[in-house]
């Protein structure tokens, strides 16, 4: 049985019908037509589907669409734009971080929330905050360079 839902994503409201048990990821990708975030595991183990829900990094692949309510969703596309980039996006371009790039939502959306709440973090704090996220291409060293660069930009 489908129900009507209304989601606030990147500042815009979208209405659609869906199975309440359907994970948010499929609503974002298919019902709202946002080709981002990505399906990586469907198990909250990798981070490829990460969005921010009311500012908190959230794995959309296991979050039922019915659990979102009137929470505000921000995706990578809503974090910043080429004209108004988030410092992490600037740093990612500067450091040329991604290889395949499929994992990118997890790292940036998680790091953005972390850097917002933690000024001048240590290397260990950054690593601990990002622990559990997956990158299969092995760009971890570049990710750390970029997060540190963004941390410096954010003061």
């Amino acid at each position, binding site marked *: 049985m489908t129900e009507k839902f209304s989601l606030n994503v990147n500042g815009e409201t979208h209405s659609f019908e869906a199975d309440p048990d359907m994970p948010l990821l499929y609503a974002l990708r298919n019902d709202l037509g946002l080709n981002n975030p990505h399906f990586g595991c469907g198990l909250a183990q990798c981070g*490829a589907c990460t969005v921010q829900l009311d500012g908190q990094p959230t794995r959309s692949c296991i979050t039922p669409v019915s659990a979102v309510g009137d929470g505000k969703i921000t995706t990578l*596309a809503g974090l910043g734009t080429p004209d108004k980039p988030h410092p992490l996006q600037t740093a*990612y371009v500067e450091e040329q971080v991604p290889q395949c790039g499929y994992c990118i939502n997890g790292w940036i959306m998680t790091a953005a929330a972390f850097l917002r709440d933690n000024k001048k973090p240590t290397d260990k704090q950054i690593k601990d905050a990002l622990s559990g996220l997956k990158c299969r291409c*092995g*760009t971890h060293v570049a990710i750390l360079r970029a997060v540190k660069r963004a941390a410096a930009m954010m003061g």
Partner: protein
Amino acid sequence: MNKAITRMERLASFSRRSFVKTSGALVVSIGAPVTFEFARADDAATAAAMSVTVKPALTPDQLSSYIAVNADGTISAFFGKMDMGQGLFVAVGQIVAEELDVPFDRVNVFMGDTATSVNQGGASGSTGLQEGGKQMRVAAAEARRVLVAMAADKLGMPAEQLTVTDGVVHAASDAAKKVSYAELIGGRYFNIHLDWNGKYGNPLYAPGKAQPKDPKTHTIVGQPIKRQDIAPKVFAQQDFCTDIKVPGMVHGRMIRPAIAGAVPVKVDDSSIKDIPSAKAVWNQGFLGVVADSEWDAIKASQQLKVEWSDAKPPFPDRAALYDHIRKTASRRREVEGKQAGNVDDAFKTAARVIAAEYEWPFQSHASMGPACSLVDIKDGHVTCWSGSQKPHFVCAGLAAILQVPEDNVHVIWTPGPGSYGRNDADDAAMDAAVLAKAVGKPVRVQYMRNQGTGWDPKGPASVHQVRAALDASGNVIAYDFLSKAFSRVDVDTNGSKPYDTLAGQMLGANLKSGDGFGIPAESYEFANKRTAWEVIPALLDRASPLRTSHLRDPVGPQIHFASESFMDEVAAALNMDAIEFRLRYVRDPRDIAVIKAAAEKANWQSRPSPRKDQTGDKVSGRGIAYAQRNGTRVAMIAEVDIDRRSGKISVRKFTVAHDCGQIINPDGLRMTIEGNVVQGISRTLWEEVKFDNKNVTSVDWLSYPILDITETPEQIDVVLINHPEIVPSGAGEPSSRPVAAAIANAVFDATGVRIRRVPFAPDYVKAALS
């Protein structure tokens, strides 16, 4: 931004061109039947005959198959290989810009679309520049030669008196006498015949009459130009193959058996009748579902009631895997490489023999996302979006399984969710095709995580038996290296044949498993030397989750874990410094140079291993390993910390010296090496396909863990050795292969304990240390 995106876009408007050879002329047809004739322009060509208004056939012997000058003066380079995330297209763009004398940002590289590029082998064997770049270089050089000849005609001057600056041909003595590339040919096509060697794939080579530039004159090649695909990825503007949608598309999911080898004997369609639009597609062993929405397809795949055949569990106890390899009769044995002397006789005279065995598990590609493909069949014409590394081969596979002419199949490579060899992408394309044909609609298939990790083709498990004979003075007089393993090509490295894909195998294709492995690549000179491999049959011959194929640097990490660990064992047995020992026997000057460069950068202090100055639970060590790979040389030094109580290894620092001949883009190369090293550490410390007697049981990131960011080295120092005079060899894989041995040697240095089995997971290391 916009410019960045256009560089990666596909020329979707191109339709596949077909041609037939008639008496002395080519008849070319494009979409609507436009037909004309022209003579080949390779003999005493006039400038007018060098270009045509309709693109010649997309064949390897036509310059237009690689290079086009557009009306706005930009250059399109059509590349039959593709970038898996290391920025290959930037390097290719640099090569093309260099040879054509145009600014780099005027070149757009289009990759891996079977309608716009010839089969240059796809992403394969680190040959993007070694083979693919080589071809693009001669094609671009020939394009420049032709353009200068056309300009000579137009300006009424000898070609020798002309030069090119930023895409404008002008008199060397008078810049006012000029004509631009765009004016000469913009919007038209080269009509130039190349001297094609008749081969497709990696060995394809089709030079023209032009000589490429002397590397000493390069100004664009060698520059650290940044990638243009980063920003689109960072701003969520990059479409992956998972993101492609077409009108009328439905979603598919595949259903795999719980016991490998079982096939459906009864499928209960009524079990999914409550899901709107859901439908099962069942043919022999092939079973999938489709539904209008992705979530419905997923639910249907979980809900469908299936009765499976009573298959006998096909696999041995995992603890017995390496014994199985040792005991099973080999299907093929090959002695390869540079052999010397008589090894067996030399061992009879040995004063001392050192022998060891090393073991490497099955490993999974475990790409970041499970594979996805979309197939649309209309009026006998097939369009497929795939992340496969080898779209031209996928084209052949789809033609075969759908029984349509290959010319009716168009495969559009679109970046996939990570790719490190023959992963699950080729299987997904075939599954999508079978489903699309069955339901008469475009079908997008994405596997679920447990299928991506559980059912991708695996890197082969292996046992390596190594021995050395020493004389009374401690000289190595004989070396004997044997790998015994599952084949690297149980299923082939591309999806061009249905029998190499899951769909083909489940639909009853006659099987044709290949045999292949490899030998160490180094330049150790011993008076008597033998390097050999043997392969054994697969554990299950059809539709096996343990079928084996190419995983990044296929069999390189396995072999060099053994060979370079063993060199350390011999050095330690002789109480010699590990580098000093290697340099006694390594003969190739470039090999010696990378070893010395790594040692210098890491401030290597000469002493034997293991260290004897450490007490307590936390100990540290350093280890070196080196290898060649198809012309590239890599030496690397690992520095590790080990907690003896937990068995946890922390790789603190890596130092890499890398020589791949001429460096096209040093920044891209550096990042490629970093990725190789980190992925190599992951494979060494954590990665092992687990299975029980029924099936693979490592099916997600918990059961198939990879390196976490908290375990990443703090520092990876890279020394790039540039040889502009040596044509580039590969970089996509060589720095994967010495990683495991460098770590193993560092662990030995720290603890005095030799770890001879990958992965070095804490429990295993702890047991080994106690």
